[in-house]
């Protein structure tokens, strides 16, 4: 009996009950050109765009139809207009530049510091006994709790903000790199010794590459935390930067500026995450088994 493969299931209740599990049905994918591929992609993914669009529509409707005050909720249109205005008169760029600089310097101090401490306590048992208890103790302290102390110590200039970022980002780097070093496969270390790797080469060729994935996880956390801490500290004491721009908008009842600030923050978070992911793809290409570059 010839089996008729139309649709996904061959055979009906009265038929042989066979199901096509490998192979394409004649009605599907015959002309598998680019346009068809696009159409399929669109057909299976258009729903994804619906959510954000609905949100935007609800937002606009709430403001324009139900008369939600512009003070409570700016309409998407006025947020877009404000964003444009802030970009044109340079306010946004100035604030962004100052905040970016603070984050960059903070990371440039905090990441190497956390990494150095992790190396000391990961590689040497004396270092571990000396450093690890202290770091574990300090890390339970919320970074923002030291803001008053930092203001007393460093005033309200750049130092407290940059140092706060540095302090906050150093912990995730420390914790992850330290765990990564301790988690390196002992069998690989033993093999390295058997094949004649000395202490230095063992660290360079076996331990550090083995700990790299954990380090990158820590770096990702760090970048996220850097923005959180910076915003907070800029809203407590600052005369410039994104956080200040938003705080100022609060005082002047400019809800639309606050929304612009929020959107910029979310974009910055996305971009930082993307950067680390690119770094991971480049540094950990051996993991996925493809030849890089």
């Amino acid at each position: 009996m010839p089996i008729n493969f139309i649709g996904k299931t061959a055979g009906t209740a009265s038929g042989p009950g066979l199901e096509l599990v490998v192979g394409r049905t004649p009605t599907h994918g015959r002309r598998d050109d680019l346009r068809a591929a696009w159409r399929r992609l669109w057909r299976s993914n258009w729903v994804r765009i619906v959510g954000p669009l609905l949100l935007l529509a609800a937002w606009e409707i709430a403001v324009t139809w139900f008369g939600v005050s512009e003070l409570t909720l700016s309409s998407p249109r006025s947020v877009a207009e404000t964003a444009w205005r802030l970009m044109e008169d340079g306010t946004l760029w100035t604030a962004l530049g100052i905040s970016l600089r603070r984050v960059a310097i903070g990371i440039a101090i905090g990441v190497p510091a956390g990494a150095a401490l992790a190396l000391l306590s990961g590689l040497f048992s004396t270092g571990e006994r000396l450093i690890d208890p202290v770091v574990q103790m300090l890390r339970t302290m919320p970074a923002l709790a030291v803001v008053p102390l930092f203001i007393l110590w460093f005033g309200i200039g750049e130092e407290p903000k940059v140092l706060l970022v540095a302090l906050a980002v150093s912990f995730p780097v420390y914790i992850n790199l330290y765990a990564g070093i301790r988690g390196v496969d002992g069998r690989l270390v033993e093999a390295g010794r058997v094949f004649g790797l000395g202490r230095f080469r063992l660290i360079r060729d076996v331990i550090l590459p083995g700990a790299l994935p954990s380090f990158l996880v820590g770096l990702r956390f760090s970048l996220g935390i850097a923005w959180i801490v910076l915003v907070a500290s800029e809203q407590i004491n600052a005369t410039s930067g994104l956080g200040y721009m938003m705080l100022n908008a609060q005082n002047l009842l400019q809800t639309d500026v606050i929304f612009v600030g929020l959107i910029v923050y979310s974009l910055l978070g996305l971009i930082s995450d993307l950067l680390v992911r690119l770094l991971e793809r480049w540094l950990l290409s051996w993991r996925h088994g493809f030849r890089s570059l």
Partner: protein
Amino acid sequence: MATRVPLSLTPSPAAPLRAVPAVGGDTAVSLTGYGRRFGARTVMADITLSIAEGEFVLLLGASGSGKSTLLRALAGLDPQADGEVLVPRARTVVFQDHRLLPWKRVWRNVIVGLPDRAKADAVTALGEVGLAERADNWPGTLSGGESQRVALARAFIREPHLLLLDEPFGALDALTRIRMHVLMRALCERHRPTSVMVTHDVDEAIALATRVLVLRDGGISLDLPVDLPGRRMTDPGVADLRARLLGELGVVAE
């Protein structure tokens, strides 16, 4: 081989450093009163053994008999053992798991720890195991058998006087294992290391060994030279050897 370099026998960390006793020129490995205890449990005691240059010794034993522990001692990886163990300085290990560094390309893994060797050397060594064209791959892309062949290339490029193999083919499928035996014989004929291989596979003894040791009850219960010129399963003597080894290992052979 007539022009062999004299062995530099050094005490492994298993023995306290003291005067090295004179060892005959053709002795590659010497154990005197070797033993190993883990806490109160004695795994092996008072083993005295000497292995001549060029021998291929197979160390058989049931799980927990201490064969891998003994091999680790020969590798110099077990300083806590008792007695005295003398092994050549030029020794290397092929582990059961390939232990390639996943972040180094295959050729870099072959010459790991050999800063003076170039990529061409690594590719030549890989050619001996039939993997020259995989030199630039990541270890993660290799199959189990290929990884173990890279591990063999990494061992043989060191021209070891003593080659230690810890169930190197234990994790491979039966067909791959047979191919590995053939490859192993070719490599040993070319490089002529003294080899000690731990296994629980009696057929591996028939395929490779010139001498079989069976570890049992904390000591060497059987020390048998193997002389099978053809090394085919149909050779006379193979069935005998199999039965004898299985019997010694506590498996009843009919």
